[in-house]
């Protein structure tokens, strides 16, 4: 209940800020950089949207307080995608046609971003994505087609590659079992794992996909145990991980074969459910509040001071992406869309995760943080980068 009230109060304040921004806009047309943020502000993913917008606003506030970009202030307008492609497209249209934004950052959901791409392309408005992980978005951008789409976020392909690389090079695994959720996300992650597996001389011994809501994994875990696999590649659902981990203890897999991939292996409650099974588990994340870089820690402090909440991944990436955009505007020497776009493709930006540059598909080269569960606690094993191999045309 408290949450709902907070959100209502938050929306109200946002509305006031929006009004304020709009009214100043009228007077200082040429002196502002108009930035639209498309994010799920309502619906089941509204938590992500709220983090995203607050991250972006914090960055805009920092930039404006420091005198803006070359004297120009950043004005943010929020668009609600509700996490669905249809609403995402109409929010994008509204931002372009009514609010006359020059730049858009959005959305969190990959399916929404994919739908926004052609809209931004037709209007010639820069779409800078900060939080969608589907590889398709930048397969179809830059050299792949959409000239106005950029992405400052690692993809599922990055994740699959980084995980398999770490497993092969640091842990010496070559024999893998696959136990992954039967969705687009899980299937795609495995597809990319298979793409890169040969270069690490890895082989897949068993391959199974589980349905959402599946609770009985004994049979498949026993098969994996008898197969001789050294690790289980799992791109799964956070809620299923404790079930699998417990049954791993039961069939005698715990402590012998680690889980690698992404399915919230590092949350406290998951580890508590089956500490023995999760020991040694490897997971890749785009960012973590605990990431030990001065810029990142300073951001966490600022965000906490302003919103009294620890920022999540979406808050960070939107905060960083607004700063990245400001840097590109500064490098371009004007807010002209085409000039900013060209500046962005050549940019060298110092993010909290390392230097950001874009490849010919407008995809940022970004590292992912690798975590390994050690003594029941996630330990950061460093950041790993991976260059994507685009299919030849």
């Amino acid at each position: 209940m408290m949450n709902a009230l907070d959100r209502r109060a938050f929306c109200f304040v946002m509305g006031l800020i929006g009004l304020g921004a709009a009214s100043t806009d009228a007077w200082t047309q040429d002196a502002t950089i108009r930035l639209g943020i498309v994010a799920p502000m309502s619906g089941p993913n509204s938590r992500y949207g709220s983090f995203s917008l607050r991250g972006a606003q914090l960055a805009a506030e920092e930039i404006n307080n420091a005198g803006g970009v070359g004297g120009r202030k950043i004005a943010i307008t929020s668009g609600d995608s509700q996490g669905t492609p249809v609403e995402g497209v109409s929010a994008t249209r509204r931002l372009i046609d009514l609010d006359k934004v020059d730049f858009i950052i959005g959305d969190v959901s990959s399916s929404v971003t994919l739908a926004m791409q052609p809209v931004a392309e037709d209007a010639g408005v820069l779409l800078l994505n900060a939080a969608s992980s589907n590889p398709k978005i930048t397969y179809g951008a830059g050299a792949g087609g959409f000239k106005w789409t950029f992405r400052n976020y690692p993809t599922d392909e990055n994740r699959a590659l980084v995980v398999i690389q770490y497993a092969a090079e640091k842990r010496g695994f070559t024999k893998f079992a696959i136990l992954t959720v039967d969705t687009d996300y899980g299937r795609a992650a495995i597809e990319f794992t298979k793409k890169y597996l040969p270069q690490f001389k890895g082989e897949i011994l068993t391959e199974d996909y589980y349905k959402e809501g599946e609770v009985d994994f004994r049979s498949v875990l026993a098969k994996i145990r008898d197969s001789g696999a050294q690790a289980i590649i799992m791109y799964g659902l956070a809620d299923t991980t404790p079930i699998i981990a417990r049954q791993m203890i039961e069939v005698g897999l715990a402590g012998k074969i680690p889980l690698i991939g992404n399915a919230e292996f590092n949350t406290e409650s998951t580890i508590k459910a089956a500490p023995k099974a999760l020991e040694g588990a490897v997971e890749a994340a785009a960012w973590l509040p605990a990431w030990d870089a001065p810029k990142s820690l300073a951001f966490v402090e600022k965000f906490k001071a302003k919103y009294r909440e620890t920022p999540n991944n979406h808050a960070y990436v939107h905060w960083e992406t607004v700063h990245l955009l400001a840097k590109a505007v500064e490098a371009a020497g004007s807010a002209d869309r085409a000039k900013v776009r060209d500046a962005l493709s050549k940019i060298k930006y110092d993010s909290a995760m390392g230097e950001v540059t874009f490849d010919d598909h407008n995809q940022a080269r970004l590292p992912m943080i690798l975590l390994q569960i050690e003594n029941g606690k996630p330990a950061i094993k460093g950041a790993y980068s991976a260059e994507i191999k685009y299919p030849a045309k």
Partner: protein
Amino acid sequence: MLSAVFEQIVNGIVSGSVYAIVAVGMTMIFGVLRAINFAHGEYYMLGTFGAWFAIEYFDLPYPVAIVIGVIATAVIAVVVGRFVMQRIVGAPPETGVLATLGIALVLQNTVILVFGGGYKFFNGGYIEPVSIFGFTLAEQRVLIIIVCILVFVGLELMVTYSRMGKAMRAVSQNIECCAVVGIDVPQVALRTFILGACLAALSGVLTAPVNVSVYGGMGEIITFKTLPVIIMGGLGNVRGTFFAAMILGIAESLVATYVGLQFRDTVGFATLMLVLMWRPHGLFSAQARF
């Protein structure tokens, strides 16, 4: 190789035991009320939530939580039974479908409203593995198999010898004649319904420690896994349900091992289709009863 197959068969018997305890309640309710209880999985969920609540809020030990889970479900079943299920007796079949589907929605969403929609962590039970015949199994699963056997022996005895069991069989054969000879049909219906709901709850509480997650929507999947079992077993047939559940459990386990986990859920519905094509009255009933 052989021991691997044997282990998978035992795995199948464990999941079959869970299906059996849930399904037998559903099949008995069908026998008496002539209605598929689409809310059956919800009683499984309620039992689990009752036990989770007892453990999480009152720090009670697991055996006590089992009792509380079952009793809480029984109380809800009394209310639902009085106000809804008793009225289904003798009503046209679509009444039962609509009423039970409606109850499923109400129960599920009430739980989500009260406890939130997130997954809860079930902290109890005997999850330490024990070694039997060269492979390991959680103690809890051994408990499930033992309870399943006890439940079925108990039900067989009750249906054959007790007054209530005889009345149940009578009602499932002919409602009008029962009324004529003085059997209180609504009372029998209510009792059968409460018994069925309690069995579902018992199964839920017993599986919670190995399934770990507790959430409002967990009953749905149970309802749909139970349907093929009761149709295979022959609607209303207690003994048939037991064997059908075991067959389904073992078949699923073998398919998950030797074909792929993603094909497991196909087994139930594929067998359901085959049974409906060749033996629509079930594998274990000599002739159609309904």
